[in-house]
């Protein structure tokens, strides 16, 4: 007997997207694995299989070690900063109030700055002589830093820049907060629960699944995608301090004709991402937030 149609129709509407995902994501992702074991340079058409040669090269690649270090430092600082900013501001600004939309708009605006413009802007903001940041520090009697010249401050400068475009997470928190039942808060207030008690005992536990998803998404963004402004801002300098893995991959694949090696590093990057996310999920599983 014929089954109802709607299900089939639903899948049919998903087809264009599914085809795009297959062609533009799945196939390239699989090709990555294949190319990682060849000598492909990205310039020719006949890659040869070279077995584990690329893996051996990876094992004593000092640049890769620098790159790993830079990436891990970056993630462990940028993710918490961005997460706290997005969640904190989302919860602070969620409640309706006159002009509330304009506060939210202000927080979102840096997110719409194009990546290159953001990098160019921060080249200026972090300029040691004339940059607004050092001048702001000057108002408090601090001499300021030579931000992009020193490895540590350069890394911090990149994190500082990436602390501004947090709009996506911010909007998700705003929406998720609106979905919580107002009566819960009335009940808690009747018990004499103040704003901090409500935050700790109601809001955060109820939002936990959304927050975990946000954190996971941000780890991926930070490790792999947000590299564009960093690439324009510092391009790996100084002393490989900001040679984040994507920057290294980009250099290998598109600058140094190391296509196959870049593919292998890509796989490494995926593995690292997976490990960090698995660790995070294991950690939160103990808190039983994901049902």
């Amino acid at each position: 007997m014929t089954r109802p149609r709607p299900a089939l129709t639903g899948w049919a509407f998903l087809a264009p997207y599914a085809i795009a995902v297959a062609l533009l994501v799945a196939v390239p992702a699989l090709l990555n694995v294949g190319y990682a074991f060849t000598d492909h340079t990205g310039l020719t058409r006949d890659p040869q299989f070279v077995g584990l040669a690329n893996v051996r090269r990876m094992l004593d690649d000092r640049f890769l070690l620098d790159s790993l270090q830079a990436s891990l430092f970056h993630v462990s600082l940028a993710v918490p900063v961005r997460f706290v900013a997005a969640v904190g501001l989302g919860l602070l600004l969620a409640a309706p109030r006159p002009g509330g939309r304009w506060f939210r708009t202000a927080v979102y605006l840096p997110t719409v700055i194009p990546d290159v413009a953001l990098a160019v802007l921060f080249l200026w903001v972090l300029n040691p002589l004339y940059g607004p940041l050092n001048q702001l520090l000057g108002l408090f009697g601090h001499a300021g830093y030579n931000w992009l010249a020193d490895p540590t401050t350069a890394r911090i400068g990149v994190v500082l820049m990436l602390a501004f475009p947090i709009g996506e997470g911010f909007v998700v928190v705003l929406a998720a907060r609106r979905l919580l039942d107002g009566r819960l808060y009335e009940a808690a207030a009747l018990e004499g629960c103040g704003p901090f008690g409500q935050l700790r005992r109601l809001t955060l536990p109820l939002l936990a699944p959304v927050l975990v998803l946000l954190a996971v998404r941000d780890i991926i963004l930070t490790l792999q995608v947000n590299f564009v402004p960093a690439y324009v801002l510092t391009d790996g300098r100084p002393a490989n301090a900001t040679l984040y893995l994507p920057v290294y991959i980009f250099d290998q694949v598109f600058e140094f004709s190391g296509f196959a090696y870049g593919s292998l590093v890509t796989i490494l990057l995926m593995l690292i991402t997976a490990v960090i996310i698995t660790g995070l999920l294991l950690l939160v599983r103990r808190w039983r937030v994901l049902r």
Partner: protein
Amino acid sequence: MKGVIRLAALTRSYGTTTAVDGVDLEVRAGELITLVGPSGSGKSTILRLIAGLDRPDSGRILVDDVDVARMPAHRRAVAMVFQDYALFPHLTVLGNLTFGLRVRKVRRAEADQRARIAAQRLGIGDLLDRYPDQMSGGQRQRVALARALLRDPSVYLLDEPLASLDAPLRFATRADLLALHRELRTTTIHVTHDQHEAMTLGDRVVVLAAGQIRQVGPPQQVYDAPADTFVAGFLGSPPMNLVPGGGVLGGDATLTLGVRPEDLTLDDAGRIAATVEAVEALGSEAILLTRCPDGTRLTVRTGPRPGVGPGDEVRLRADRLHRFDAATGRRR
């Protein structure tokens, strides 16, 4: 005359729930028939199956002796009024009424003309430029009806069309629906979970429970001779008193005896002794909640001001007993 519907062994399950379970039913041409049952008993599913919005797992649907199993919904010459009316909120009343005509490529001028006539007929001719959220519940219901009229179908399917109206409006609209049906004489299947509607609207009533038909017949006949204990308990308010084993009503252990509240009378010569526990005065009548010495509770309908109060000892007389099989619940 067109509009004969025959359902044969119609079955539809969703996962583990069988929403419609082997339903056999014949609806005559021009008849107004009411499907009644508690919510979740499969009434809407039957309508959707007839309309072609859903497919049966097994069984057949014949409209004018044509098997419509493979016919798409819009070719089936049925019109449906949904419980929430399903008006398109982004279109005006006129847009709602002409939506189907325009989809079927009727010219705009003609579509508008036909929509106007249908709207006039239902008394919403001056609302054509309103949006659904600018109208009252009753007006929206009329738009939904007008949209169904425009289909000029051989069968109307009305899914709880009165359920979201408030009480006085429901009363008035019920009469309008009846008048409309009398005028059109088109086969109509009307679904409700309200037993008042089931009793007053429709030539015949079909009582459903858990996807199965329990009884079919003219409303009064079903009321007077319910086919089983479920129908007995479902139709009538307050429901029939059912006493397993007969108890105070007399009888034997293989029977369940039933008596309607209005068939119990306060009578000093009555055989049944009971204590009044509460009196619900409803204005035009009163309901006595009583308890017999063996614990059986009996509900009694009396005229207003029965002259007894809680704690009073009374005697009751039972007329018109209904006898059901204690094991199967079927009428005997």
